[in-house]
């Protein structure tokens, strides 16, 4: 019996009494017909999966029940404990729909899913979940402290615990100076940060991040990615959906690529991105003579399509370095040579 918590209490209403009897029957005959009709079938959790999805489909319908679009088609996948899992896909591919079904914001048309061993419709699962929506849907009339206190009070947290946790999180997301300002005065990036803080208020085991880097500047993006990796290091499971492929590549252990609601690719990032018919070598700066020798060796092995070039830092790295340098030496402008001459990482 997975859908009814042990804290269920019976009241005097006749209808409730009837269902209480049904509930008792379920306990008595777990595998009986009653159980098979009234209970969500519990999925096999032996493989340490935090999320299990089987044949999940979602059809959006209009007011009259006519089919508008099938957002998810027979999706089956698992998310394992302690991994960072990325849901990728273009707009409208069904990744956010899947995530909202996991959270109970949408109801599946068919299929089954469990999160942390509980049905998606079971509210008690939320005790161990943190969710950062695509945009920070928070109460704009509250300030950061009040926001975290409010969400903290929805969990079994004492006032002291809530205060301590709020201080930590506000410090972590860098909103220390703005903690008394109402959220309506926040920029988009600040709102994302407080959104992230609320998602982590209960120190969750499973963190669901919908477009976590959306609206963040490169520093925020890097910090978000660092945070995801830190969460992973703490043993937490992170599920993120994004179409910022670079971000996903940087942090995810496994990814699933969805297209028009169907699962197209599922696997480990390093396995999927490895180019098996090419080699790449990276060294410190080479002299012309060394280059000439290497060419000779390659020629000897009948390799004629080798190319040599200097590695290029990506724009994110450049931006981060510039910001860091500017902080250390304010008022200074950097030349191209200076920037290019700096070590990458």
């Amino acid at each position, binding site marked *: 019996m997975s*859908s*009814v*918590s042990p*804290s*269920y*209490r*019976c*009241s005097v209403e*006749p*209808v*409730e009494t009837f*269902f209480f009897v*049904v*509930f008792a029957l379920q306990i008595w005959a777990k595998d009986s017909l009653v159980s098979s*009709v*009234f*209970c*969500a079938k519990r999925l096999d959790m032996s493989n340490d999966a935090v999320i299990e999805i089987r044949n999940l489909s979602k059809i*959006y319908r209009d007011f009259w*029940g006519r089919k*508008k679009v099938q957002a998810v088609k027979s999706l089956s996948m698992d998310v394992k404990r302690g991994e960072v899992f990325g849901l990728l896909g273009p707009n409208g591919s069904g990744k956010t729909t899947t995530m*909202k079904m996991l*959270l*109970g*914001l*949408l*109801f599946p048309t*068919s299929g089954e899913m469990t999160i942390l061993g509980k049905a998606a*419709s*079971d*509210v*008690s699962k*939320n*005790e161990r*979940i943190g*969710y950062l*929506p695509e*945009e920070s*849907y*928070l*109460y*704009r*009339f*509250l300030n950061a402290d*009040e926001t975290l206190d*409010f*969400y903290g*009070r*929805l*969990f*079994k947290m004492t006032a002291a615990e809530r205060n301590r946790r709020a201080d930590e999180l506000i410090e972590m997301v860098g909103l220390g100076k703005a903690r008394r300002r*109402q959220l309506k005065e926040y920029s988009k990036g600040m709102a994302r940060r407080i959104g992230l803080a*609320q998602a982590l208020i*209960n120190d969750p085991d499973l963190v669901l991040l919908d477009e976590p880097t959306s609206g963040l500047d490169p520093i925020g993006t890097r910090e978000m990615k660092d945070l995801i990796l830190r969460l992973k290091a703490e043993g937490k499971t992170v599920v993120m959906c994004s179409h910022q492929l670079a971000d996903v590549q940087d942090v995810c252990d496994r990814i699933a690529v969805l297209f028009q609601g169907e699962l197209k690719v599922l696997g480990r990032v390093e396995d999927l991105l490895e180019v098996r018919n090419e080699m790449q070598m990276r060294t410190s700066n080479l002299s012309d003579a060394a280059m000439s020798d290497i060419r000779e060796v390659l020629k000897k092995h009948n390799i004629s399509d080798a190319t040599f070039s200097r590695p290029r830092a990506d724009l994110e790295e450049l931006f981060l370095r510039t910001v860091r340098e500017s902080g250390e030496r304010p008022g200074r402008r950097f030349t191209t040579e200076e920037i290019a001459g700096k070590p990458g990482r």
Partner: protein
Amino acid sequence: MDFDVTPFTLQDMAASLKSWLLILSILGAFSLLLGMLLCVARNGAAGIGIFFKGLLGFLNDVGSVSPRRIRALTSLTLKEAIRRKALLVFAVFALLLMFAGWFLTNSNERAELQVGIHIAFILQTISWIMMPVVFFLSCWSLPEDIRIRSLHTVVTKPARRIEIVLGRIIGMGIVTLTILAVMGGIGYLWIVRQLPTEAKKQLTCRVPVFGHLQFINPEGQPSLKGINVGDVWDFRSHIAGNSRSRGVFVFDGIDDSTLVTGTETGEGGSGTLQIAGLRMECRFEAFRTVKGSESSVRKGVTAQYTLSNNPREEAFGLFSQSETLRPLADALRDAQFRTAANRMEELATKVAADGEAAKNKQNLELMPADYMGLQLGSVYAAGVMRDRKDVALESAATAFQKVAERGGDLVNIMASNAEDKHEKIPGLHEALSQSMKQLASLLDQEADTLHEHLPKLEVVLPSFHVSEYHEGAAENVKFVPRTVRFSADAETQCRLLARLFEMINETGQLVEGAGLKSDLAAQLESEGKISVANANLVVEVLTEQLASGALKVDGSKLVVADGQRWFHFFDSLIQKDLLISAESEGWMIERDLIKDLTHDGYLRVEVACLNDQMYLGMARPDLFLRKPDRDFLVGYGKALVSTSLMMLLIIVLGVTVSCIVKGPVALFFTFTFFIVGQFFHEFMRELLYNPAQQGMGAIASAVMTAQHRNPQVGMDVSEATQRVVQGIDAVPRAMLWGFSEIVPDFSVFNSAAGFVENGFDVPFFETVVPAFLIFLGFLIPCVLIASALLKFRELESK
């Protein structure tokens, strides 16, 4: 507005609870069925499993409600209301109060009108200012949360939907109650400060005790209705001036707590005394049939109250409902028990003759109504006599009871369709006749005892004027001191003297040697509170009686020579006109209002109109006893509580509807509920339950219109068609019934304000308790419905 409220009893509460459970069961069953059908329609056979799974989840949510989370959501709602500037209503309120005085305060107006206007202004203003706030808060808050998706973040936490609903309702409730309390407080101060000093005296809460009204017609017979003077409104019935016509108000539950402390001018006009007494307030309608000068019109007509304790009227009044029994009734009411015995004997003979006639299948002399009158009158007579718990009346009560039983047997068999009724009826006539004869014999034997033990005491109060335009509030309020001094009639005089002499004789202080005690007159004066002249008269007459041998000295006591009781001895003296007072006021005596004029808490007040050709109109609420007034703040507070409950109910309805539809639609729905509940609830119930309003259904009416027929003759169609038409017409009727049951009666919440505005206290059990129960009755199902709607709603549906 009628301030004579219907009592709200435990039986009413039980009936309401039963009806509530019925509606809830129907609603619950309908919702479950609809839910299951929707699940099946969407998911096929698997829908049943989904439905039950969802239901179990919902019940699980209901069972795991956390006060901690509700508190969090409540405080969120509070912050939202405050930061979204709901408190701006105070500014509007303040603005209105700043200038209202310019238009409302008019010191030339009557004081009670000024008070009413000021209170009405404050209570209405609070109500109307609060309403938009409450409507918008309750209908807009959740849909707005859903629109901007802030609720989505909340539901991804362990917050149950029922907690969200409760948090919203409680939070908004606290905001509303706080605003109401502050505005109520400011309003109270404004009323007190704004009213002129004279009008402030009227700022009180009258606590009325209403009675039951019946009439005595100009022929002196009891009647349920008075005279119709041609007024289209039959709210008031009239009594004719200068006739035996009376309005009789019978009040129940009168005791010391009904009395108030009033002032009375001391003897010889020397200052005022604070004494306890009964306060009566009337608002009769004077109806003049002749024109008069302006001053006489303003003076209205003259009315007079008579307080009476008249068990004979109560016991035997009902006999007079039958024309044939009227002579019997008159004799019994006038304590002419020997005459009554003769009348009863005559009737018994007629009943026996009717038995013979019935046997020979001839017409009966007495009508069925006479037999019913005889039965009911006897039931009542026996009941009233037993209620007095007087052993002397027991045998008469038993005899009346026997007549009632025999009469009942006869009436029942006459009304039945039993096959053997014609065989039984003569025997029953005979049995009734026998018991009537026994009663007649007993009445004759115990005439004196009955007369003595069924005393009639009447206190006629000074007359007063009733204005045609309800002017002169002071004139309408009468104060009757608890110890009332009045001019006694012969019967009362007789009882007074009999009691006095029995008492003095008992202590052996009546006789001195072979004659009366020398200071007997002084003793009578002090103990009987009668005047010196009357005391001397009594001593003089008694000395003569002693000399004539009608009285004799027996030891230390004085006894009546022929063994009569003192009551009958004095009665015979009065009958012989030997005790006519020489004083102009007659026999002035004192009686206690509670001890002597009420019996088991009943007080009878007869109202007479003294002007010839004039009429006095009255309805049940037109005369009431005023208990000690309560502080204005008490009634004002109760009115605010009622208003608060109304606002809370609007919040509950608004939040419920807003769980499934968007803000504007929720607002429209809730407002419609309010308007229908406020103005049309009574109308719906009239249509449903008043046969005069029901008429026929739409289809039946259409058929009859086509056939040019009316409801009396009905449709000219076959029985089968008639059933089909009635079946179709039953559908909208059932819908109307359902609608009338699920729309709350908002007028209950407003009634409290009416009481305060008109200077009355708000009856707690009849106004505030029903309002609270209505609120509670809607709160429980609404919270469940709202939670279910929110739970089974896809928040992210596109």
